[in-house]
């Protein structure tokens, strides 16, 4: 069973604020899912390489040629807060 501290640590890594109820619920539900995932330990995979993707293309490169791109207005059109041609964010450093 995941502890409350572990759940809160994971939530902090994921930048999610959890309510008390969510913290309890996720401790319970994630524990059940992870317990189910323990089934994988029945398989000996010591000599098996991992598969991250199935297309086996590597380092797809292209020439660095300028092409059409979004205008500042298009790029900023969905911004919750805009300041001229900049995205406005909350204070990061004191």
């Amino acid at each position, binding site marked *: 069973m*995941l502890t409350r501290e*572990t*759940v809160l640590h*994971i*939530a902090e*890594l*994921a*930048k*999610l*604020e*959890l309510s008390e109820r*969510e913290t309890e619920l*996720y401790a319970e*539900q*994630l524990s*059940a*899912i*992870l317990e*189910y*995932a*323990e*089934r*994988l*330990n029945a*398989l000996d*995979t010591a000599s*098996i*390489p*991992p*598969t*991250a*993707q*199935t*297309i086996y*293309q590597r380092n*797809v490169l*292209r020439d660095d040629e300028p092409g059409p791109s*979004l205008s500042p207005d*298009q*790029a900023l*059109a*969905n*911004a*919750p*807060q805009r300041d001229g041609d900049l*995205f406005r*964010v*909350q*204070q*990061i450093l004191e």
Partner: protein
Amino acid sequence: MKLYDLTIHEALTLMAQGETTSVAITQALLDRIAALDGQIGAYLRVTGDLALAQAKEADARRSRGETAPLLGIPLALKDIICTKGIETTAGSRILQGFIPPYDATVVRRLRAAGAVILGKTNTDEFAMGSSTENSGYWTTHNPWDPTRVPGGSSGGSAAAMAAGLCLGALGSDTGGSIRQPAAYCGVVGFRPTYGRVSRYGLIAFASSLDQIGPFARDVIDAALLTQVIAGHDPRDSTSATEPVPDLCAGLKQGVRGMRLGVPREYYLEGLDPGIERAVRAALDVWRDLGAELVEVSMPHTAYALPTYYLLAPAEASANLARFDGIRYGYAHPEATDIWDAFRRTRAEGFGAEVKRRIMLGTYALSAGYYDAYYLKAQKVRTLIKQDYDEALQQCDALVTPTTPNTAFQIGQHADDPLQMYLEDIYTLPLNLAGVCGISIPCGLLDGLPVGVQLQGRAYDEATVLRVAQAYQEVTSWHKVRPSLPDTPAS
């Protein structure tokens, strides 16, 4: 003639013969959406004015003698596919009001092929779910029984097809999100090989598993739609460079002499006996058409579910890190500093299942657990892929049920995410292996549709489509419709 119930190939023929127009078909569909979708909830957003303008343009092009593969065909798009100038939410509150500044590559290709866009269909939030119950907006109802789910995550597209609210649709399939709702709604759902269709403009869930594909009334339509959307795209570095063959050319060559594999691990406990009967009856049809049935074994099939539920959430936790309330989407109005803003924006913007998967994925990737969970799952993924490589050396395609059960009741799995995940047990393995597969209707069980799934080799969409087409030429399950009122042309 029910214009809303045409196949795409029938509609193209009728328009070419001057029997009907794109405007007439589009209007018939918009009328039917207005009449029925209040109860079904397939569309999150209907773009009626745009659709009629596109239909008018398509009719004008046709009258000038122009042709295009989907000229004047009205389609629905899962709301996880970006459409320039049309709100796209991925079924999430965090993207409410988001207007993409560009089209997904598939949308660009559909527009170039002359298609008409009717609107955006409901989905589980960020495609995470098997029922549309995780949508941030509402739950779509199954047109065969409104107390049941349409499946998911592409449940809006599947329900729109089944109810006659579009002629074709696109969805995305990360663990079965096209094939499972297709089975639940009694329509054709095709997931092409990973990399066959560009993911550019598909809002990412799990990037090594996501793939766009079509919903259709029959296999011919699925081939027509796939032909338009498939092909290499320089904007998606994981898109395949393999040339796309003519998918319609060999469609009707039959299955005589082909070998169809029956993997025994798909026919064990947990499978509804009624579904097994329907799938075995479909196997008899293929055998009678001259295919040889061979039993094969895919011993790691049972490990696909735990593998998937470590890898997909891990990838999702990384992909969804971009939702920070700065560049687009919801931003919490009262946050005090940037860290508070991230935490509160994401806490309010994401729904319960998305948060659950971000938590699960973050855990699987975190220090101390990476090897035990994420790396272990990647190694088992190799074993699952090897099962496919070996099985598909012994046969041309694999025949299995699409789902262990028919569509479940709305709310049935509300408190137990693991039970919900088990609904995808027959569709997840394919995504891990990166091959292609289709679900086609093969019967009714207590009045609800049953799907049979065909899985084929990577880049061999043509064989899967050909086997499916052979079945539809001698059966009529794909022509059975739910009992909904007719909506006469206005």
